[in-house]
């Protein structure tokens, strides 16, 4: 009995269930939806059908499930030249780390359902979100493949460019309310969302998330025409599936951060008591907003090609970084004027 109780205790420890329910299950559902949507939307722009025959009645929705199951049952090749330990661990750790920010953000204003004390949640969430790319670089390095290493190095370049922007622009939201508490940030948006108050910071954050998750036009580390699959060139089977999933899960986690910081979180709704009203409905609202953001991200695929590495870095440092700083200044100004 004690063991069962212990397991139940662990599962119902707030950060864990939020990670499992929203982080793992929620992100899996959203990622499957988004990948399907991305393929269908791109197909629509390109005047074709996209995945269809796998299940014609639902327009090929289970296509991603088929791909996932196929990957899960494919041979996992570990080449003799790789550093096997890191090679296997890196994608697993990267995947876990990329959804970890979800464990420390509030999805409701009801303190009973906060996973952790919220006083410094903005800082903690941002800090955790910056860890996972290191494991992608490690994955590239451990693969001992030239394309992987080039891809890993590119990843490193891109990280240095986007991380500061992402942190600055999301901190702008917390600067407006002069608090590191995510709940304060969301509550302050009950009248007017920060996307309207501070569009500069939102735009900078949008671009930073695109760069962070290799979305077009910044799909540089995995740019297939020079470096095959970037850091993941040597990965096969489930490990590759994890790697691909990690990028989208990270996009999901960052989208949730953005939804909280700029799109008002659970804004039109006021969470009440009980698990339904206090936790599930507000979190579904947040996830829905994050999904809308991700749909916007996936449209860039059909419109743009990709930038060159130096152009992307140039743009990030010369254009987006000042924009993020301006956004931060704007936030401070608004805080000074007491707009919110």
């Amino acid at each position, binding site marked *: 009995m004690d063991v069962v109780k212990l397991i139940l205790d662990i599962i119902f420890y707030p950060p864990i269930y939020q990670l499992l329910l929203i982080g793992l299950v929620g992100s899996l559902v959203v990622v499957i939806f988004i990948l399907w949507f991305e393929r269908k939307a791109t197909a629509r722009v390109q005047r074709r059908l996209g995945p269809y*025959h796998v299940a014609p009645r639902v327009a090929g929705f289970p296509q991603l499930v*088929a791909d996932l199951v196929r990957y899960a049952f494919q041979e996992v*090749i570990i080449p*003799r030249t790789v550093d096997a330990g890191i090679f296997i*661990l890196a994608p697993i750790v990267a995947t876990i780390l990329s959804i970890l920010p979800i464990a420390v953000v509030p999805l409701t204003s009801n303190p009973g359902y906060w996973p952790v004390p919220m006083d410094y949640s903005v800082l903690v969430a941002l800090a955790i979100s910056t860890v996972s790319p290191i494991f992608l670089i490690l994955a590239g390095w451990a693969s001992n493949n030239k394309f992987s290493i080039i891809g890993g190095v590119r990843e490193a370049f891109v990280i240095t460019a986007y991380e500061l922007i992402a942190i600055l622009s999301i901190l702008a939201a917390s600067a407006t309310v002069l608090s590191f508490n995510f709940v304060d940030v969301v509550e302050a948006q009950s009248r007017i969302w920060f996307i309207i108050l501070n569009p500069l910071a939102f735009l900078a954050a949008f671009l930073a998330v695109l760069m962070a998750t290799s979305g077009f036009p910044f799909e540089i580390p995995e740019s297939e025409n020079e470096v095959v699959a970037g850091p993941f060139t040597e990965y096969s089977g489930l490990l*590759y599936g994890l790697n691909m999933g990690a990028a989208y899960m990270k996009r999901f986690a960052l989208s949730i951060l953005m939804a909280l910081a700029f799109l008002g979180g659970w804004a039109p709704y006021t969470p009440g008591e009980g698990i339904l009203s206090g936790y599930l409905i507000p979190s579904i609202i947040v996830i829905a907003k994050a999904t809308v953001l991700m749909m916007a991200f996936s449209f860039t695929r059909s419109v743009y090609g990709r930038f060159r590495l130096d152009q992307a870095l140039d743009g990030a440092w010369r254009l987006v970084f000042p924009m993020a700083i301006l956004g931060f200044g704007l936030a401070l100004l608004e805080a000074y004027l007491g707009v919110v």
Partner: protein
Amino acid sequence: MSGDGGRVYVGNLDRSAKRAKDLVMGKLRMGRAVDWATAFSLWPVHLTTSCCGCEFAATWSPRFDAEQHGALPWVGARQTNMILIEGTVSKKMACAVRVTWEQMPSPKFAIAMGACAIDGGIFYNSYNIVRPWEIIPVDVYIPGCPPRPEAVARAIIELQRKIRQKRVVSKWIEEGWRPDKEYVAPKEDPCSWWRG
């Protein structure tokens, strides 16, 4: 966890894998699901061996759109499970075909496209070509020079039917090797010119 020389010590992997296989394929009866998933997720690797690549490209163009069937040309050999030989395979290319085939994780399939891939076609007496079936086991042949895109799409559907009706993938996973097809080992090393 990581030992010297890149070895990993995590217990008896073979036994764990066998038990996992028994659980998934035996008790949970995932066989059909795996067949279904693989049939609708045949990703050809990007290896254009010859001029049939024109029609290969057209097959994935909006007019014919083979992505409908779940097939998506993918970049690296490690992430794919199908190789589409497009026409003639020259002696230099034979090495690339074999290496790519060996890089791909099983279960994997091959489609040979065009008359040249069957028996040389118009280049039957060329001194620089190799028959693809000498290097890799081919599942479906497409006649034509070049075959129309519809024929390529048809070959993909045919392969899907084969996988699902003969339950190729689930048997492959259960038995550890492919039961319905002989393993093709090239008689002479296609890369001998490269190794010198």
